[in-house]
């Protein structure tokens, strides 16, 4: 055997050992889950999202949300998560059945060799350690989740083009004034919200779900692995400040907590400054394991401002820098809702975030790369997805993925700074999805809706699509000319 062959053998062995470490974990978890039942999934106990402004919850993001019973939470505030509805799904799982609401995973398991999210979520560090305990629980038992996402209110100073009234008060005002958009699906028309009892409770009004949360919180807090506040804009909610103050007041804080807060970083200056003070105090006193701010922007400059109505890009970027400078241990994730309007100038955001990674990379932080770019693609509303664009734009996205690859670290490790595997794979996946468009009637309708939506958007909001997106001006004209 030559030296080269020996080397190759060693490298192959090393690669295989990595592969097997990972797949063995998931394989073992699946075996353990299946031993209890083919539909058993720990996330039904360990994870929850609470939309308190709506009084809705779900465990795992795949099933639809369901209504929380006011009567239940009056007796038992943990019924925000431990709803009777959810307990019946847990019963099915413990009895070897597959709840139909989890069909996303059943489809994956029945139609591919891949592991489903049931396995991935059950293998997470906030799930797996509790496997034995949960297996032996009675289905009626209450269980404190370890991974909690909560929205206290829909109060928001932005009305992002793809968002909805249930998540934004400014959207709500606009729809109340002007009604739904003239797309074929009446985008953001509120009648379905009334029908589905998803009308949000205004922040100023009494909210029994928020009240129940605060009753449950002292008991929940110490069991938490991850707690993340979403919205609305959390900095506009008094309950966000309540959570931060609670953590600061504890004699024995949960120091293992991973605390995440979403923010558009467009709140008034005094709130941003107050936020920085609280973070600093929490971090300086070691009251959490990790503090992550999830912020949002979808491309660069004026085009980003158009997509996220209310955003002042330069002020946003200043606030990012202000926080990263003042809080030397905080991690910032840019949650991108990559949509059709992101495409022309996304490379500038890739460069900008790369500069931030270098500027604030430090071994004081949990990850040296202090800033992450999470490029998730928009799926709804379908008229604004990347698939509506002409295929001549596909290559631009490919080049953006290549740019991230060039700016990447060859090995994701704390000590190296640059884009990671996950960040690159997400934009590559986005590109693959973009290319999978089918030129059919549905696409034509989506393009028609694109034209209708942004024409009305310009009229209502005083914006100018063609001026802001000269690269897409021709496409916009084309979409406006479509007759269905």
């Amino acid at each position, binding site marked *: 055997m030559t030296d*080269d062959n020996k*080397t190759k053998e060693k490298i192959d062995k090393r690669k295989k050992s990595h592969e097997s470490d990972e797949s063995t974990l998931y394989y073992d978890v699946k075996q353990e889950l299946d031993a209890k039942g083919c539909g058993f999934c720990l996330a039904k106990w360990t994870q929850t999202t609470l939309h308190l402004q709506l009084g809705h919850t779900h465990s795992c993001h795949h099933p639809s949300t369901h209504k929380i019973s006011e009567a239940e939470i009056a007796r038992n505030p943990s019924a925000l998560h431990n709803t009777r509805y959810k307990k019946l799904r847990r019963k099915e799982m413990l009895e070897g059945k597959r709840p139909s609401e989890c069909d996303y995973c059943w489809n994956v398991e029945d139609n591919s060799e891949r592991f489903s999210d049931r396995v991935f979520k059950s293998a997470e560090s906030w799930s797996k350690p509790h496997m034995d305990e949960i297996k032996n629980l009675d289905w009626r038992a209450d269980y404190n989740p370890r991974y909690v996402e909560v929205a206290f209110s829909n109060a928001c100073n932005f009305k992002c083009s793809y968002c909805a009234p249930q998540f934004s008060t400014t959207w709500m005002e606009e729809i109340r004034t002007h009604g739904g958009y003239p797309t074929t699906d009446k985008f953001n028309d509120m009648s379905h919200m009334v029908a589905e009892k998803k009308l949000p409770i205004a922040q100023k009004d009494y909210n029994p779900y928020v009240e129940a949360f605060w009753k449950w919180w002292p008991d929940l807090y110490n069991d938490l692995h991850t707690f993340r506040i979403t919205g609305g804009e959390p900095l506009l909610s008094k309950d966000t400040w309540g959570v931060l103050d609670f953590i600061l007041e504890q004699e024995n804080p949960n120091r293992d907590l991973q605390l995440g807060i979403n923010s558009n970083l467009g709140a008034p200056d005094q709130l941003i400054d107050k936020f920085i003070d609280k973070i600093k105090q929490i971090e300086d006193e070691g009251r959490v394991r990790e503090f992550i701010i999830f912020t949002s922007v979808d491309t660069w400059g004026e085009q980003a401002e158009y997509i996220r109505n209310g955003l002042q890009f330069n002020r946003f970027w200043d606030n990012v820098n202000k926080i990263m400078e003042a809080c030397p241990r905080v991690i910032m994730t840019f949650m991108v809702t990559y949509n059709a309007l992101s495409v022309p100038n996304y490379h500038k955001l890739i460069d900008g975030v790369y500069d931030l990674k270098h500027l604030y990379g430090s071994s004081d932080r949990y990850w040296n790369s202090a800033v992450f770019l999470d490029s998730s693609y928009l799926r709804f509303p379908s008229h604004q997805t990347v698939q509506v664009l002409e295929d001549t734009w596909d290559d631009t996205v*490919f080049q953006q993925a*290549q740019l991230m*690859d*060039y700016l990447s670290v060859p*090995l994701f490790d704390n000590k190296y700074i*640059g884009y990671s595997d996950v960040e690159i794979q997400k934009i*590559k996946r986005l590109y693959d999805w973009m290319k999978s468009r089918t030129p059919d009637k549905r696409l034509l309708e989506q393009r028609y809706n694109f034209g209708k939506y942004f024409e009305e958007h310009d009229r209502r909001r005083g914006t100018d699509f063609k001026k802001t997106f000269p690269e897409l001006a021709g496409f916009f004209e084309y979409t406006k000319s479509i007759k269905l």
Partner: protein
Amino acid sequence: MKFENGLCYFIKNKNKYGLERTSIDYITSNDFTFLVKCKPDWEQMKPESSSGIVAKNGMHIGLFAKKSPLYDGGKYSSFIGITFWVEVDNGEDKDIKALSWDIEVDKDQQSYSISMSHLIEEKTIILRVGEKEKHIVYDGQLVDYSNAWIWVGAACDFSEYPEEHKHKYVGDIDFVGIYKKVLSDRTISQIIKNGLKDAINPKHKPGSVTDFSNQTPYKVKDESGMGHNLTISGYDWT
């Protein structure tokens, strides 16, 4: 770009994210050209050594700078050469082939333009140094290099390899172009004269091209857009 203190780069045979527009793993199984602009630091090179300028690892194939043993009076000779291996007797045996040009060391020389081209049908490998050209015709076929990586500034740098087999280069390399085509003399002259503007022209079938003007701490940008950036060696990932 100064190559010293063991600095070298590699190009993997596949882009791990599928972000390549053309594959280069089988590049040596077809027509190809390696084109570089470089200036070896003959003084710093050890006598009787050979340094990889652009090469694939294993049974090496590529462009090398070579220095003879010291002659009487402490003088040495310098060469630019190519090395490659062929399978003969239906793969039963392997032969090493080499070809080189003597280099008149001239301290005022800016840099040399050097190329190695493979004409698969003619079973010929051409070495070009400046305007001078030599070729070699081989029997059999080139060994399979599809699993090997391309190295710039070495012949390989896997941590498991003994140092003497790495063939580290010392000196400047200002341009590297990997092409899936035999470039004509005229094209080579144009690329050397005009730089990236001509070097990345798709009609030349570039696989990876750089003049080292765009770099991160870990990578050198492939300006051809083909997705084969150069990655720095010598870290945990090699």
